[in-house]
């Protein structure tokens, strides 16, 4: 197994966004296929870029609690924490919206966003991460008011996620499985194809390809089911993921995706989870990628 770059968040806490939904950035569908236009930069009167929501001890007056984050933010600004009771928001000043057309620039911004969220995790424990590009206008006061309005729901999810992190597992074939002689139907079809005349041989070849694809699809489903059955007793939550790629993830390679899942688990669960994944990774032609811990992007609901 090996580690790869972090997954991107697919959901967010629903701070009132100032732009159209930034999903198209954080949902990794930014593939360079958009038209070549100037990036839009809507100016903000007193904007605040929201990185995540964190749990606090409480007791401070609402507003900036003086805490800083040990990371540089987007546009090299300094993130800080505003609080309202026992919930806080990691934010920074922001003069404009972000809508980069350039994939390299987007990648840089996502990594910066992630580094701030990671630093917040170090300081405050598991946060509720927000999507890249989540903005509020109206200064610190607007953020404090939003925290007050959403406090109950934010506390619920903060407590639910406390002590856990997200991990992502990707199982792939480095080479598609071959049925060999054990599958009599396919072996017989292979023999008939080899013996047939050109026209019939062509159709038998197509038939063989279809049956082989169906057989491989069954093997893929079986392996995906086995993965989930091995993990479910060990984790708090598990969610299957579509075949998505992140703009900052490892580029597509020659492997064939079998299954991707996101799990939420404690640090103590890492070792037994690793043991289960090792049992799968040991098989010939199978590759397992196990990344994390990350903030619970996949499990944070829209608020």
């Amino acid at each position, binding site marked *: 197994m090996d580690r790869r770059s972090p997954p991107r968040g697919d959901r967010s806490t629903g701070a009132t966004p100032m732009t159209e939904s930034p999903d198209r950035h954080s949902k990794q569908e930014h593939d360079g*296929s958009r038209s070549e236009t100037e990036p839009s930069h809507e100016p903000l009167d007193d904007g605040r870029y929201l990185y995540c929501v964190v749990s606090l001890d409480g007791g401070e007056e609402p507003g900036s609690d003086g805490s800083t984050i040990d990371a540089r933010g987007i546009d090299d600004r300094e993130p800080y924490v505003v609080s309202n009771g026992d919930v806080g928001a990691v934010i920074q000043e922001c003069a404009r919206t972000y809508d980069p057309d350039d994939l390299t620039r987007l990648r840089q911004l996502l990594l910066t966003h992630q580094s701030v969220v990671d630093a917040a995790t170090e300081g405050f424990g598991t946060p509720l991460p927000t999507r890249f590009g989540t903005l509020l206008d109206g200064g610190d006061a607007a953020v404090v008011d939003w925290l007050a309005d959403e406090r109950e729901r934010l506390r619920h999810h903060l407590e639910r996620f406390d002590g856990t992190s997200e991990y992502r597992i990707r199982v792939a074939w480095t080479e598609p499985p071959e049925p060999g002689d054990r599958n009599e139907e396919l072996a017989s079809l292979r023999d008939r194809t080899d013996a047939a*005349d050109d026209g019939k041989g*062509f159709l038998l070849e197509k038939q063989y390809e279809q049956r082989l694809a169906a057989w491989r699809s069954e093997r893929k489903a079986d392996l995906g089911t086995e993965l989930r059955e091995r993990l479910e007793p060990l984790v708090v939550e598990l969610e299957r993921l579509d075949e998505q790629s992140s703009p900052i993830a490892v580029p597509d390679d020659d492997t064939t995706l079998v299954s991707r899942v996101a799990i939420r688990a404690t640090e103590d669960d890492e070792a037994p989870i690793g043991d289960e994944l090792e049992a799968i990774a040991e098989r010939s032609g199978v590759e397992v990628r196990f990344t994390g811990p990350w903030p619970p992007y996949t499990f944070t609901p829209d608020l």
Partner: protein
Amino acid sequence: MTRIDLDGEDPASGLAALVLTVVDLLVEVLEREAVRRMESDQLSDEEIERLGTALAEIEAEIDRLVAAYGVEEEVTSLRNDLDGLVSRAVRDVSSADGVDHDGQEVPSSRRPVDGGDTDD
């Protein structure tokens, strides 16, 4: 999603990729139907031979045109995009019908009320 450049320096190439991808998909449908009829004994040996020969020639011609226009990558990419779209649509329809993409029945509480997205 694959980008097809119809306004650039070589729009013919982009258009060729689109057309050849669509043709390739249609021929695949024909091949599947031919195999189905062969499996269900609806075709004589002569018909099988004739149909297989014709489809083989069409496939060879498509490959030749793809190579001639130099659009192998675009066609492959478009096919992958379309396969993904179709798979997702089939999955959504299956979920709306109460069956997930493993063929398992989906509890009614998880089924969409209005046929919307059903990420599982």
